């Protein structure tokens, strides 16, 4: 089943309340996905040339100072790090690709949950209320968030199999549905250089968007291309450094509802996740059309809607 939620703040004055507004949305989707929970928050960008990483190791007493020391030594750069439950938020004045390569080679037991200038992802196995508490979600401030409550179908219930999936710089994805051509697509993306960490179909979708955008596609183009390349059921919410997008497959089996006010844009699997946001009574409320790309980019940006229409023929 799975539940997905997204909240993009158009009014920057609300940024200190982002986590407090977002947490009830995520918790409301507990019945749709009680086995794992995750969320991505966009905030506190590091300067160009630096990277912000969220790393994960299952041991709560894992020695992150050792990781920090190794990275400082390897990159001769200042490092700032903070343990947050099983995760570690780490900022380093070094290129993302090089840091990823180093971690992959030298610290294979440490998972890279997210990497970029803005993005931070926190995800774990467990009920939404437990996971939200572990990471102090309600205290978080930022510009936008997307989140996921998982009821696993395709792959194991593990931290790595939880959403959001992030592959490239600042991009992440949450997915409700299942893809039927993910094995073929995975092989195709591997040839294009993508490195996979799970057997999960949603990771294939995340890698698809990453490869598309690395090859020069805009977020909107990548979403349009997804309509022809991805086969199966999906409602996606996608986060980028300054944007937020929603896409449903042409048959629209998986639910989605959206709401927009002058202050925010929200999406959720079900209306009840949105029902308690401030000003919702006067929000524009709609069900996103199948095979239609919805994108918001930049603070205060107006949304763009690009429709192929329901049951659009692929190709």
């Amino acid at each position, binding site marked *: 089943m799975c539940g997905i939620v997204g909240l993009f703040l158009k009014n920057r004055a609300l940024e200190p309340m982002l986590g407090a507004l977002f947490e009830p949305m995520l918790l409301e989707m507990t019945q749709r996905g009680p086995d794992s929970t995750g969320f991505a928050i966009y905030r506190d960008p590091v300067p160009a040339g630096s990277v912000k990483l969220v790393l994960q190791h299952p041991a709560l007493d894992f020695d992150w100072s050792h990781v920090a020391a190794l990275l400082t030594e390897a990159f001769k750069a200042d490092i700032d790090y903070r343990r947050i439950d099983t995760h570690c938020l780490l900022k380093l004045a070094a290129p993302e690709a090089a840091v990823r390569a180093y971690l992959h080679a030298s610290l294979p037991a440490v998972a890279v949950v997210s990497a970029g200038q803005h993005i931070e992802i926190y995800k774990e196995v467990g009920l939404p209320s437990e996971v939200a508490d572990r990471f102090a979600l309600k205290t978080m401030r930022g510009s936008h968030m997307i989140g996921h409550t998982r009821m696993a179908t395709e792959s194991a219930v593990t931290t790595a199999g939880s959403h959001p999936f992030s592959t490239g710089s600042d991009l992440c994805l949450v997915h409700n549905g299942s893809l039927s051509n993910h094995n073929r697509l995975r092989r195709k993306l591997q040839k294009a250089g993508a490195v996979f960490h799970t057997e999960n179909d949603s990771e294939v979708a995340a890698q698809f968007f990453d490869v598309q955008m690395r090859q020069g596609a805009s977020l909107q183009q990548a979403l349009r291309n997804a309509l022809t390349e991805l086969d199966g059921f999906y409602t996606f919410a996608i986060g980028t450094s300054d944007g937020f997008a929603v896409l449903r497959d042409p048959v629209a089996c998986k639910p989605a509802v959206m709401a927009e006010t002058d202050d925010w844009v929200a999406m959720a699997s079900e209306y*009840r996740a949105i029902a308690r946001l401030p000003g919702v009574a006067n929000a524009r409320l709609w069900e996103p059309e199948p095979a239609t790309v919805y994108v918001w980019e930049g603070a205060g940006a107006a949304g763009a809607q690009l429709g192929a229409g329901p049951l659009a023929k692929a190709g």
Partner: protein
Amino acid sequence: MTAERVFDLTTHTVRELNQALHDVTGATPVRFKVVNAMGDHALAVGIDAAVQVEIHGHVGYYCAGMNKHAVVTVHGNAATGLAENIMSGCVRVKGNASQSAAATGRGGLVVIEGDASARCGISMKGVDIVVHGAVGHMSAFMAQKGRLVVCGDAGPALGDSIYEAELYVRGKIADLGADCEEKEMTAEHRTALSMLLREAAVDLEAGDFRRFGSARRLYHFNIDHADAY
């Protein structure tokens, strides 16, 4: 004097509301007012009495499912599966309805004053559905009996694999599904549609609608395929 019972869903549970609705017996008319519906699922489901239920707020999945005799009005939008398998009575939504509204409905009337999304009236078996606005793709999919009236436009694949339901559309149709075709609108159909529009409180001329139904080509085994075995 009609009694009115008020259920505030910030203080009452959905189970309490539904149990109270199921407990109604006898001939005394009862009015229920439900406030602060915040997208809750399964509101006013399984009623089997001539009660009147007014729900204020947006409702979640399967509102007024399996309804018998009751008149349920939603002052808001409805999520997936509104009035699923309705048997009789009337379910009216002042806003929009999500997917599969009135799915498998066997009788009664469902009125959606806004738009309905995909698969409205899927596998309908006798219910009458009147949508003031538009319907989404694959509406009346495998419809078997009853009438779907669309005052606005219809999305792609209307009436795909339809059996014997009657479809009336006033606006544009994206395209018809397999085995669905336009039918003649006779005086008899116009009269019946006029009555249904009046019942649904729609002030439109029956003559402005086109009628669609089954071409009946998918009913039977095609003997030309016998060689395939």
